[in-house]
């Protein structure tokens, strides 16, 4: 499968790297981006925490 992902690694890094982001509209966003999977057509896929 081209979009398989190591979710445990992603979650660990995602939580550890969580940081406040700009909140220009009152949306409570947090962000942490890592390259976490490959896609044969798009190339590396990324993951980021982005919460309303």
């Amino acid at each position: 499968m081209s979009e398989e992902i190591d979710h445990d690694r992603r979650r660990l890094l995602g939580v550890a790297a969580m940081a406040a982001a700009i909140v220009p509209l009152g949306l409570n966003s947090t962000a942490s981006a890592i390259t976490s999977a490959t896609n044969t057509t798009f190339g590396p896929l990324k993951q980021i925490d982005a919460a309303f």
Partner: protein
Amino acid sequence: MNVGYAESDPPDGPPVILLHGWPYDIHTYVDVAPLLAAKGYRVIVPFLRGYGTTRFLSKDTIRNGQPSAIAADIVALMDALKIKKAIIGGCDWGARTANIIAALWPERVKAMVSVSGYLIGNQKAGKVPLPPKAELQWWYQFYFATDRGREGYEKYRRDFAKLIWQLASPKWNFEDATFDRTAASFDNPDHVSIVIHNYRWRLGLADGEAKYDDFESRLAIAPAITVPTITLEGDSNGAPHPEPETYAKKFSGKYAHRLIKGGIGHNLPQEAPKDFAQAVIDVDRF
């Protein structure tokens, strides 16, 4: 939400966010993204909630598929990526999401490309019966309103999605590998819940969340969209869609509509990537 997304270089290029629909995924834009990247755009293509590698962070979060929640996800993604303003393009659910962002947060949208035009709806309108032929086009919405429909979609989601592809794009001879590449995204653990909730919410059969009530009340008046916009329609779109003359006046900024010919169906960006990419480039110059 932990959002999965594809991103094309250059990272400092003008941002373009492209939003997929149902039952599709980021591969709707697999041939659009490199065309725009070659023109210097930073292209971001996220999986909507319930698709691909996008995940809820808590098992306790309501699996809410209401349109304004999906739009808020994308604005939150923009915040997380520190993107203040972007060109936003969309198709199907993605077009509706783009419409909502442009209506509620116009300061975040430089310009918009929307397949099938103006798609903002509300629960009150969704409860109004349509003439029988129009209702027939929404057969899957009624199916999803039943427990049998939820179980059927859970059990046969790939067969179901392939049938929708065939009906919505009757002249698109996609290969099995093309479909399978996208269908992997429907294995997302929240996919069925999000899809069922979305369609039940539209009919007023499922509640939304209170935190989105203000958004929904503002959308219920069918607000005009002020950002520069190009709307697109394929000449062989087999999915239910409004006629362009019914929505042209909803766009109060600089606006153009294009009919894409050649047997182009509902998944227009994947079926006619050059036309979609050109629309993004052109609307950026409006």
